[in-house]
Structures are given as structure tokens and as C-alpha cells.
């Protein structure tokens, strides 16, 4: 009986080691000028993080994160590329802006300050300081395997 218990314990330990552990990361974005919060959608390795209803999670937000080798090939370490894309307010709701639909351009730039590779040993609070998008530029949404690119 004791051997069986030890065997089960060992099996559970091996199974637990095989699954990637989850950590909780707190993602925040602020304006570099006013230092007020900037609502943003969050992407991990180019994948948008949604709530249970399929709507984008909006910063500030805590999200479970799993550190594993990057499946997209953008980086080679066991880290996660975190991107924050500024949202716009339409009828009192936050949404991602769509070019050519009458939406205003995002109020903040989606540039190098909006993306970062986070490793397991980094702080669990990730703050992004965003610059105002005074030129009204459009930016492509993050996607798997893509790096930042500015639109027109």
C-alpha cells in the first residue's frame, strides 16, 4: 500500500513537471505626458487576450501567463512577447480602432514602447509608457510572428 502511494505521488510529480506553470502578470499602460492610464488590448506572442465572452481584456489587467519556448520564432528564449495596443472609446465602450470604418486613429502610438519580451525572472507588473499619437497614424494590430509596423 505504501509503495502504491509513493508511486502515485511520483506520477503526479512527473505530470506536474510536464505542464508549463502559470504565473500572473499585471499589465498596465500609461500616457508618457499625463501619466494617466491608457486602456489597451493585450497580446501575448501576437495572440490577443480575451475574456470569456471573446472581448479583449483591457488594461490595467492581471492575466495568467505561461513561459515556454516561443512558438512563433520571433524570440528564442523562454519568454513571452507582450504587446499593448491602444483602444478607442465608441459609445462608452472600449474597442480596437478599425481603419476605414470612420473610427478615429488610436490616441497613442503603437511603437517600440508598446512591446516587450518578458522573461520568467522579470517583475510581475509590466508597465508600458505610451507616447501620444499626435499625427493620427494608423498601426497594424499585432499578430503571431509579426513585429511592430507603422501604417500611414
Amino acid at each position: 500500500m505504501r509503495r502504491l502511494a509513493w508511486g502515485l505521488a511520483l506520477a503526479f510529480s512527473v505530470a506536474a513537471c510536464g505542464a508549463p506553470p502559470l504565473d500572473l502578470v499585471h499589465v498596465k499602460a500609461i500616457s508618457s505626458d499625463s501619466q494617466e492610464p491608457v486602456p489597451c488590448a493585450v497580446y501575448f506572442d501576437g495572440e490577443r487576450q480575451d475574456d470569456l465572452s471573446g472581448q479583449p481584456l483591457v488594461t490595467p489587467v492581471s492575466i495568467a501567463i505561461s513561459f515556454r519556448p516561443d512558438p512563433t520564432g520571433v524570440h528564442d528564449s523562454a519568454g513571452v512577447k507582450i504587446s499593448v495596443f491602444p483602444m478607442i472609446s465608441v459609445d462608452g465602450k472600449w474597442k480596437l480602432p478599425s481603419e476605414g470604418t470612420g473610427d478615429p486613429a488610436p490616441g497613442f502610438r503603437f511603437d517600440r514602447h508598446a512591446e516587450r519580451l518578458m522573461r520568467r525572472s522579470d517583475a510581475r507588473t509590466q508597465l508600458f509608457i505610451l507616447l501620444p499619437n499626435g499625427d493620427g497614424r494608423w498601426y497594424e494590430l499585432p499578430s503571431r510572428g509579426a513585429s511592430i509596423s507603422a501604417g500611414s
Partner: protein
Amino acid sequence: MGSNRFRAAGALLVAALAAACSSSDVAIVIKSDPAGATVYVDGERAGADGDTFALHFGGDSRRKVHVQLCLRGREPAEAMWELVEVPSPDGRGVREKTFRLERVR
């Protein structure tokens, strides 16, 4: 005899822990050029340029502390420091780092 050994081992353990704790915290003065930037440490607002900041590295040698500065009209500046990467003390034993914040283009 046995209890003396036990006490000695306990004292050594306490000394080792104290040494580990004191060596993992680093005080540094952070400045900005131009002056007036707000300083964030590990994502939390920590003070302003010219202040002295305590960086907590804990027991993880790979742990990085994230320092960020922002100022209206300037590009944000940042550094990710492991314990060995924190700027060394000067002749007065003071650690200091000045971040230059470029004008936004």
C-alpha cells in the same frame, strides 16, 4: 556538546541569511536629463529624479529590476538591471545613474 553544535549551526544560518538579504538590496540615485522625470520601479511609481531608490533583487541571481522614466514631451527611458549590472558606486560610495530623455520626434 550536541546543543552547542546546534546553536552554532543556527547562528551560522542566521548570519548567512542576513548577509544574503543585505546583499540583494541596492540603493541608487536616479536622475534625468532634463530634470523632472517621474521614476517607476518594477512597474510602480516610485518617485522623481534625484531621489534615492532601493532596488530589491531578492535571492534570484537572474532577477532583473525594471527602471522606467517618463517626462512630458520626451521619449520614455528605461533600464533592466540584474544585480551585477547596477552602476557601480563612485569615489564617495554613491551609486548614481542619469538617464537622458530624448525629445519626442
